[in-house]
């Protein structure tokens, strides 16, 4: 069986997209792990949509129910943090002041449509802040496994699940590959160590252009 990246390594690869001075919102689930791999010596401000800019690591010491991130996890604060209410928080998100949002995905289409909130086979799901983050962030990175259980490709010609937002995804990072979403469709730019580009294509519904600089991820 082909062995792709672990969740931690997907998070590590996503973290390489984040640079000094950026404001970044990490969605619930896998994206949360990205906070463990932020580049050191660079100032990256993590935004939690429940009203914190500049939180640090997830920490259970001195649990305070009023000091949590958007996933409900207790967090520490970095120097220069600030608090604000939810209207101000979504003004920040919707107004394009978040440089990068990293969200989990259920499906991404070749046009960059994202479906990540509703799972028809469970008949359940909630919107939370996902639609606003998907529409508002300057750059949207989706971090997910390349296929769902049973091998069903998550990267699809068009999404079958209810959309979070149409045409919003900029970059897809999976356990198998890094794929850019552009006006001409999807471009495979990196493969996970030991993964063949043909194998990535076989696990992907739409055609993947291959970048002239296609290479193995450096982790």
């Amino acid at each position, binding site marked *: 069986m082909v062995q792709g990246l672990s969740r931690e390594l997907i998070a590590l690869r996503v973290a390489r997209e984040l640079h000094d001075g950026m404001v970044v919102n990490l969605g619930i689930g896998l994206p949360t792990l990205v906070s463990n791999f932020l580049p050191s010596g660079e100032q990256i401000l993590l935004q939690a949509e*429940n009203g914190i800019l500049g939180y640090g690591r997830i920490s259970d010491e001195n649990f305070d*129910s009023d000091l949590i991130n958007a996933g409900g996890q207790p967090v520490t604060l970095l120097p220069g943090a600030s608090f604000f*209410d*939810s209207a101000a928080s*979504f003004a920040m998100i919707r107004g394009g002041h978040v440089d990068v949002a990293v969200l989990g995905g259920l499906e991404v289409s070749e046009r960059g449509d994202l479906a990540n909130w509703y799972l028809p086979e469970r008949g*359940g799901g909630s919107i939370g802040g*996902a*639609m606003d983050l998907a529409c*508002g962030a300057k750059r949207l990175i989706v971090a997910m496994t390349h296929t769902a259980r049973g091998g069903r490709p998550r990267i699809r010609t068009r999404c079958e699940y209810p959309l979070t937002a*149409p045409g919003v995804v900029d970059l897809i990072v999976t356990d198998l590959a890094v794929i850019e979403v552009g006006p001409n469709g999807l471009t495979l730019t990196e493969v996970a160590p030991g993964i063949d580009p043909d194998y990535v294509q076989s696990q992907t519904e739409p055609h993947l252009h291959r970048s002239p600089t296609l290479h193995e991820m450096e982790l």
Partner: protein
Amino acid sequence: MIEKVFATPDDALHDVPDGATIMFGGFVSAGSPSNLILALRRRGTTGITGIANNIGLGDLLDVLCEKRQLAKFIATFAIRASGGRASRFEEQYARREVELELVPQGTFVERIRAGGAGIGGFLTRTGLGTVVQEGKRVVEAGGVEYLLELPLRADFALIKAHRADRLGNLQYRYAGRNFNPIMATAADIVIAEVEEIVETGEIDPEDVGTPAVYVDRVVRCDPVPVRWEG
């Protein structure tokens, strides 16, 4: 001077009628008015339309399902796509015993702000091309299409702050702000649960998160420990 301080959460809810529309502040465990929620359960008010960011997610709102006090809920997060044991709300929703209106979180809080700020509606891109668009007007402005979203108000808002003064000024703490200051502007009667009540003038005017004009009733309670375990 108008007396705003009530002795118990139950006193503060003395006139909440069946069928009321009620907002609840809080985001998961932060800034959730747990004592007021428990008093509302004791009161047994039925046919409630509830408005809160989440239910059954590190809050105590799920207790209102024990005796089926909720007729409808407007939320951003109520039904999980994955995870463990279903909440009572999820069970009742699965049986269609309670109605649910899911709203994107930014639209949710902006609708409440509009309700409090005399704004008749606003244009947002959020929800365009999704199920959220259903039944809504699309308005073009500056060459771009937007959804027209309408204000949200309630009969009562139950909120949580850190401190209050006797005049009704509220001070928040950490991420306990979230929806509380916004909901305080958008309900006919606003009831705040706080950890401490001080004399008027003891909260620095720079530290007031909700000005006294918005607050009708204040009740001091020991916070209920809540925590979301996923």
